[in-house]
């Protein structure tokens, strides 16, 4: 009993020295091996045995995050990164933390629910000593996280059905005279009300706070014209099937459609709503502070561009712009000239109003 405690302490001590850099990993293992203790090396011992679990919403993103972010970080540090596809919704994070068995370190997420999760003590504040604020546009830096990538909810359109006419951003979203046909609309709100209000002629700089009442009235007026989608694949299908002529579409999906249809299904950057993809870190995350080293490493422009290449997500680091090829410039929502034509999402408004307005919106659509 005492002996094993002593051995465990010895291992811990070695691990601490390893972490301080007083000895290297090989020395530790050699020493522990001599004691027959190699397996006793605690999980907290520097890189040894450490693993960071990253959860996103699955599909191609699992492999893409691994290639762009996980792999290079492992190569640099020896820390294993496991990317899992799942449903890391705010509710799932809450359920995991409250169960007490926390196995995720960091998840894919949206900025607007970070304050809600933060207030309930479910996620950690970002360690900005490790993650560099300067590598992100200031509008996408928050207490509980900053943008790791960008995505934009743009106005996509079917050029064949519009007869080659290009809608002026969302300003033509409600223009049924010149662009007859149904409109795609995002079921989970981000970009939906913006599209309607801009379509009614609201100036982009006067958009927030969103006039929800007016937006709802406008939707009611044209209710049969909107087709809701809840996920990226479904939105793509709506355009492919010719169900809609224009409407909400993530730029990541828009670029795929554009490529496969040779420009028949395409999009305009004008008035796109750019939102940050922020990765919340769970409280008491198993890998500890090392997760912030991973998040910091993900800010490297080359790694962000890698993700853009595979998934079409915009680099959050504006420095990536200088390294882009012409093809990538075309699809990057964060590339300065594209960014200038769009607008950033008002995260504070969403944080304040999302839960209420989302429920009212569903009620409106179902009513």
């Amino acid at each position, binding site marked *: 009993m005492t002996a094993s405690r002593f051995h465990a302490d010895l291992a811990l001590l070695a691990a601490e020295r390893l972490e301080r850099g007083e000895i290297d990993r090989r020395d530790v293992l050699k020493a522990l091996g001599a004691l027959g203790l190699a397996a006793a090396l605690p999980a907290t011992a520097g890189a040894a045995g450490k693993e960071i679990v990253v959860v996103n919403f699955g599909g191609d993103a699992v492999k893409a995050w691994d290639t762009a972010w996980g792999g290079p970080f492992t190569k640099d540090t020896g820390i294993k990164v496991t990317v899992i596809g799942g449903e890391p919704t*705010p*509710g799932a994070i809450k359920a995991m933390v409250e169960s007490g068995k926390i196995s995720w370190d960091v998840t894919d997420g949206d900025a607007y629910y970070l304050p809600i999760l933060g207030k309930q003590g479910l996620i950690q504040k970002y360690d900005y000593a490790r993650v560099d604020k300067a590598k992100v546009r200031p509008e996408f830096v928050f207490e509980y996280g900053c943008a790791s990538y960008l995505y934009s909810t743009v106005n996509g359109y079917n050029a064949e059905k519009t007869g080659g006419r290009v809608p002026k951003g969302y300003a033509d979203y409600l223009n049924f005279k010149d662009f007859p046909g149904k409109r795609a609309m995002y079921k*989970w709100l981000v970009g939906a009300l913006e599209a309607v209000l801009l379509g009614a002629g609201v100036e982009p700089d006067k958009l927030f706070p969103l006039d929800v009442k007016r937006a709802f009235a406008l939707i009611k007026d044209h209710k049969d014209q909107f087709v*809701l989608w*809840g996920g990226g694949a479904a939105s793509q299908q709506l355009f492919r*099937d010719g169900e809609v002529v224009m409407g909400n579409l993530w730029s990541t999906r828009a670029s795929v459609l554009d490529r496969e249809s040779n420009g028949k299904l395409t999009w305009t950057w004008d008035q796109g709503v750019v939102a940050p993809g922020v990765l919340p870190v769970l409280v008491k995350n198993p890998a500890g502070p090392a997760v912030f080293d991973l998040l910091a490493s993900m800010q490297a422009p080359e790694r962000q561009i890698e993700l853009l290449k595979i998934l079409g997500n915009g680099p959050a680091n504006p420095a990536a712009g200088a390294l882009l090829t012409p093809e990538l410039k075309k699809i990057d929502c964060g590339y300065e000239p594209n960014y200038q034509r769009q607008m950033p999402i008002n995260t504070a408004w969403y944080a304040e109003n999302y839960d209420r307005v989302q429920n009212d919106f*569903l009620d409106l*659509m179902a009513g």
Partner: protein
Amino acid sequence: MAAARVADRSPLAWTLPSPSWGLVVPLLAALLVLYLAPLVNLLWISVSDPSPGLGNYQKLLTSGAMQRVLWASLRIAGITTAIALLLGYLVAYVMLHAGPRHRLWIGAFVLIPFWVSVLVRAFAWLTLLRTEGLVNQALLGIGAIAAPLALVRNEFGVLVGMVHYMVPYAVLPLYANMKGIDRRLVPASRSLGAGPLRSFVSVFLPLSLPGIVAAWVLTFILSLGFLVTPAILGGGRVVMISEYVRLQIFQTIRWGLGTMMATVLLATVLLLLVALSRVVDMRQLYGAK
């Protein structure tokens, strides 16, 4: 009567249940741990989040939106059940009177869709019913309609998908019940001068009533809890309880409201069963007697 029955039993029988009960102990224990405990937790959250009390239940009384969700669920489940029962009854009736070979084929056509995932079926219906889908294209092609019909992304689409899912659940209890009906009774009624319709209405139909009730309970309760089919085929325009609960739990983190609605769903089902048990003998319905 009751007193006499009690007197019949030895005192020991009261203290020691039959040893065969031991066989179900593992199942009961599993139910207790895996089902009852989370259920209690669910109830608890509904009266404690965000603040202790019945606030969440009060909201149901004042919120038009929540009442609409509840009402839509009851209405859609009700219509689904009625149509599925009618179709299921016809299928079961034909199965009963078909030859063995024919019956096997009908059985296969009932059971095979039963094994296909609900997600696959919903997407299949979406492909068939959408504006530029097979059904609309065919109708346009033969000139039956001038413009595509709105067959999906509305309540109609949801009903099509749900009825399709529910028909096997109606057929199986109905067929099981019909098989137990004495096959000589209808010919006997005919020989006494009743026509085919009267023989069916006064003899066969009343005898198949337990099957109808069993099928009704099964399909209605399952229909109330539908999630995937309304979410996909409703295109956001049909929100039933399960989707509402999902939204509150995962998306907007209003667990109190979500668990409250789940509790209301559970209570509705239990109340239905209690009400029903007063009309029919449940033990007989499910073959316990």
